[in-house]
C-alpha cells in the first residue's frame, strides 16, 4: 500500500515525458502531480474513504470472472441510440451519430473547455485521474427542433484487467437541450472522472450502470455543473465488483434547477461499495432529492452517504435525503450517513436513514397470500429497489 502514491506519480511522470498534449494541459497534469506528492495514500482516516477497503486498489492477484446478474433498468423510449465505445486504442462512435452531437477525444480538449475540479486530500484517488488520464471524450450536444431525442451510451470496454485505466469525459449540454446518457462498464479496471456541464434550461437523464464482474473495480467521480432552470434525473445501479467508489458532486450555480437521483447499491458477495452524493446549494431556490437503497448480502459491505450543503443566503432550498439499507446476511455490513450543513434559514431540509432486515410484516403479508418465503424475499427486495429506480 505504501507504494500507491509513488506508483501513481511514477506513472504520471512517465506519461508526461512522452505526452504530446498542449502545454496548458501538461501544466494541469503537472500541477496535479505536485498536489499528489504531498498527499497520503487514502485510508480510513479520510472521510471519503473511511469505509472503503483501499487495499483493493491494488490489482495484483487479479483473476478473470463473470459478471453478476442484474435486472437492467431500461427506459424504453423512442429515441436515437448513439454508442461510444471506449477501448484500449481510443474510442469509436456509432455511425448514426447526428451532427447535433459533437464527439472528440479528450486529448483534443481546448483550454477554454477545460473545467477545473476541486480535488483535495479527501478525493485523492480522483486527483490521480487528472494526473494520469489518457482516454475519454468531450461531448457537446445542441438539440435542434427537428432532431429526434438522443440516448447516448458510453461503454467502457478495456481489455487489460490488471491495469487501471484513467478516463476523463466532459459532457456539455447546450441551452434547453435534452439528452439521455447511459454509462456501462463491460470490462476493465476504471478510474473515471465525468464532468456534466448543463447550460440554462438543459436537461439530462442519466443512468450509471455499474454491473461489475467479481474482480472488476470502478472508481468514479461525477460532477454536475447546473445553470438555472436545469434538471437532472439520475439513476445509478451499482452491483458487484471487488471495489466500487462513486462520488457525485452537484453544484447549483443558478436558480430553479432540480436534481433528483436514485441509487441502488447491491452488494451480493464479497463486494465493497461506497456511494457518496454531495449536493451544493450555492444559490437560491433549487431542489435536490437523493434516494439511496442499499442491500448487502454475504460478506460484503456498503457505505452510503448523502451530503447537502446550503450556502449563506441560498434561501428557498429544498433538500431531501432518503437512505434505506437492508442487511441480508450475518456477515454483511452497512454504514449509512446522511449529512446536512445548512447556513441559510429559509430552508426545508429533511433526511432519514434506516438500517434493518426485510420487513417481517410485509413478508408475512406476502406469505399469507401463498407466496413462498424465498420468492417473498425477492419481491420485497425488488420493491425496495423500485423506490430508488422510480424516484
Amino acid at each position: 500500500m505504501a507504494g500507491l502514491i509513488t506508483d501513481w506519480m511514477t506513472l504520471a511522470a512517465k506519461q508526461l515525458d512522452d505526452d504530446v498534449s498542449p502545454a496548458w494541459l501538461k501544466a494541469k497534469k503537472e500541477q496535479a502531480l505536485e498536489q499528489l506528492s504531498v498527499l497520503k495514500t487514502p485510508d480510513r482516516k479520510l472521510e471519503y474513504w473511511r469505509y472503503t477497503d483501499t487495499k483493493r486498489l491494488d490489482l495484483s492477484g487479479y483473476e478473470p470472472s463473470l459478471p453478476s446478474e442484474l435486472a437492467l433498468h431500461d427506459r424504453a423510449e423512442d429515441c436515437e441510440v448513439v454508442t461510444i465505445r471506449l477501448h484500449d486504442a481510443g474510442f469509436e462512435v456509432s455511425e448514426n451519430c447526428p451532427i447535433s452531437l459533437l464527439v472528440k477525444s479528450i486529448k483534443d480538449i481546448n483550454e477554454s473547455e477545460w473545467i477545473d475540479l476541486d480535488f483535495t486530500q479527501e478525493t485523492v484517488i480522483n486527483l490521480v485521474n487528472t494526473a494520469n488520464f489518457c482516454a475519454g471524450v468531450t461531448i457537446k450536444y445542441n438539440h435542434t427542433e427537428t432532431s429526434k431525442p438522443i440516448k447516448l451510451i458510453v461503454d467502457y470496454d478495456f481489455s487489460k484487467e490488471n491495469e487501471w485505466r484513467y478516463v476523463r469525459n466532459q459532457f456539455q449540454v447546450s441551452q434547453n437541450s435534452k439528452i439521455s446518457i447511459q454509462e456501462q462498464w463491460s470490462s476493465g479496471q476504471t478510474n473515471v472522472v465525468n464532468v456534466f456541464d448543463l447550460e440554462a434550461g438543459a436537461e439530462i437523464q442519466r443512468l450509471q450502470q455499474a454491473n461489475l464482474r467479481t474482480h472488476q473495480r470502478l472508481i468514479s467521480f461525477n460532477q454536475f455543473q447546473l445553470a438555472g432552470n436545469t434538471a437532472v434525473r439520475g439513476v445509478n445501479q451499482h452491483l458487484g465488483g471487488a471495489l466500487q467508489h462513486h462520488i457525485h458532486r452537484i453544484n447549483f450555480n443558478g436558480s430553479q434547477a432540480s436534481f433528483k437521483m436514485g441509487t441502488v447499491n447491491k452488494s451480493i458477495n464479497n463486494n465493497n461499495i461506497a456511494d457518496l452524493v454531495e449536493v451544493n446549494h450555492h444559490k437560491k431556490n433549487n431542489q435536490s432529492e437523493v434516494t439511496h437503497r442499499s442491500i448487502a448480502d454475504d460478506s460484503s459491505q456498503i457505505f452510503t452517504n448523502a451530503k447537502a450543503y446550503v450556502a449563506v443566503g441560498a434561501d428557498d432550498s429544498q433538500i431531501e435525503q432518503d437512505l434505506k439499507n437492508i442487511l441480508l446476511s450475518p456477515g454483511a455490513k452497512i454504514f449509512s450517513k446522511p449529512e446536512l450543513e445548512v447556513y441559510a434559514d429559509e430552508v426545508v431540509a429533511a433526511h432519514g436513514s434506516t438500517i434493518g432486515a426485510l420487513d417481517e410484516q410485509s413478508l408475512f403479508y406476502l406469505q399469507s397470500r401463498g407466496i413462498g418465503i424465498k420468492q417473498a424475499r425477492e419481491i420485497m427486495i425488488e420493491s425496495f429497489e423500485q423506490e430508488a429506480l422510480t424516484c
Partner: protein
Amino acid sequence: MNQKLEIKGLEGDEENAVVKARAKQKYKEGFVTDIESFTIPPGLDEDTIRLISARKEEPMWLLDYRLDAFRKWQQMESPSWAKLNVPEIDFQAISYYSSPNANIENAPKSLDEVDPKLIETYDKLGVPLHERERLAGVAVDAVFDSVSVGTTFKAELEKVGVIFSSFSEAVHDHPELIKKYLGSVVPAQDNYFAALNAAVFSDGSFVYIPKGVRCPMELSTYFRINAINTGQFERTLIVAEEGSYVSYLEGCTAPMRDENQLHAAVVELVAMDDAKIKYSTVQNWYPGDEDGKGGIYNFVTKRGNCFGKNSKISWTQVETGSAITWKYPSCILRGDNSSGEFYSVALTNNYQQADTGTKMIHLGKNTKSTVISKGISVGKSQNAYRGLVRVAKKADHARNFTQCDSLLIGKSCGAHTFPYTESANMTAKLEHEATTSKISEDQLNYCLQRGITEEDAISLIVDGFCKEVFKELPMEFAVEAKALLDISLEGAIG
C-alpha cells in the same frame, strides 16, 4: 384562521412567570468572587503534575497514572474533525491548579469551616450549602476551581451506604474503588482532551451506590470556575452496583472574562446488572460576549458503560453556555438488554460554536438506544449534531431510534447534522430522522394573531420544540433550563 395549530409547552403559568423573571437578567452568574487563593504558575510539564499530585497528597499509583497519561498526551494531536473553529490553545499559558485555600493545612474539615465568601458565592448562584437553607432532597458537591469546597448530606447518604464525596477525598477513603474504575470507561489515551484531563485533573465528584440501593435523593455537583487564566479539569466517576438507582445533576458557571478559559472534564459511569443511572447537565459556562470575546472552551468526554444485564444509562443535557462546546456523552451497551438514552438541547447564540451529540455502541443482545437532539442556532453561531450508532456483529436484535431536529433563527447562523449509523448485524434495526428548518411562520403568525409579542412567541415555540428533552429533566432543573434558554435567545429577533 381555522386550522388548529399545536404549540407545545403552553401550560404552566406559574412556571412561565418564574422563567420570565429569570429571563430578564443577563448572564447573572458572571460575577467574580474576590477571595485569596493558591494558584500554581502557568505552565505544563511533569513537574506541574507532580506538584498537583503532591498537593493532593496522592498515592504513588495515581501519580504514575497521571504521568503515563501526560506522556501519551504529548504524543497526541488536538482533534480537527469537529465542525469547530478552535483557536490554538497555549497549554503553557494556563494554570492547572487553583484553590481558594492558600494553605493546605487550613483546608476546611467540614462545611462549617468553609470561607463565608465561598458560601456566599454558592448562595448567589442559587445553590445554598448551609444546612438550614439547603435544597431539600438534593445533595450537593460544590467544586470551586480545582477543589471541592464541601459536600452536603454526606452523613445522611452514608446511612444507606451511598458514597458521595469529592474525588480527592475518595482517593484517600476508597482507593480500591478508584483504582478499579478510574479510566475503565474512558481510558487515559482515549482522546486528546481525555488524556490531558487524566494528567492534570484536580477534583470532581465520586458516587458509589451499593447493591440494591435506590439513592434517596438527587445528587448534584456544581462546578464553578473563578480564578483567572486557570483551566478546570474535573473528573467524575459514578458506579452503580447491581439493582441500584441514582439520579445525578450537574451545573456549571463561570465569571465573565475577556480571556478564554479551558474546561476539559471526564465523566465515567458504570452500571452493573439492573442498575440505572440518570445523568442530567445544565451547562451554562460563560459563553463570551456579543462580539465573541471571552467564554469557556468546553471539551468534555462523558461516557457510560452499561456493563450489566438490563442496565440503563440516560444522559440529558441542556447546553446553552460556553464559547465552544465539544461533547459527546455516550453509552457502551455491553450488557444484554441494556439501554442507553441521550436527550439534548443545544442552543448557540452570538459567536458560540457547538459540536455535540452522542455515541451509542451496541455490543450486547437486545440492546436499545434512543437519541433525541434539538439544536437551535441564533445570531452568528454554528451548531452541529454529530452522532454515531454502531451495532456490533453479536448485538442481535439491537434497536436504535434517533431524531435530531435543528432550528435556525436568523440569517447568519448555521445548523449541521452529521449522523453515522453502522450495522454489522442483520437482526438489528436502526432508524434516524432529522429535519432542519426555521421557525414555522404559521406558528408564529398564530401566536401574533392571539396578541403574543414576537419575542414571547419565539420563546414559546422554542420551548415547545425542546419539550421532549425538558420532560426528562428533574423538575427544578427544567425550570432553570427554560429560563436559560430564554436568556440565550436574547437578540434573536431582528
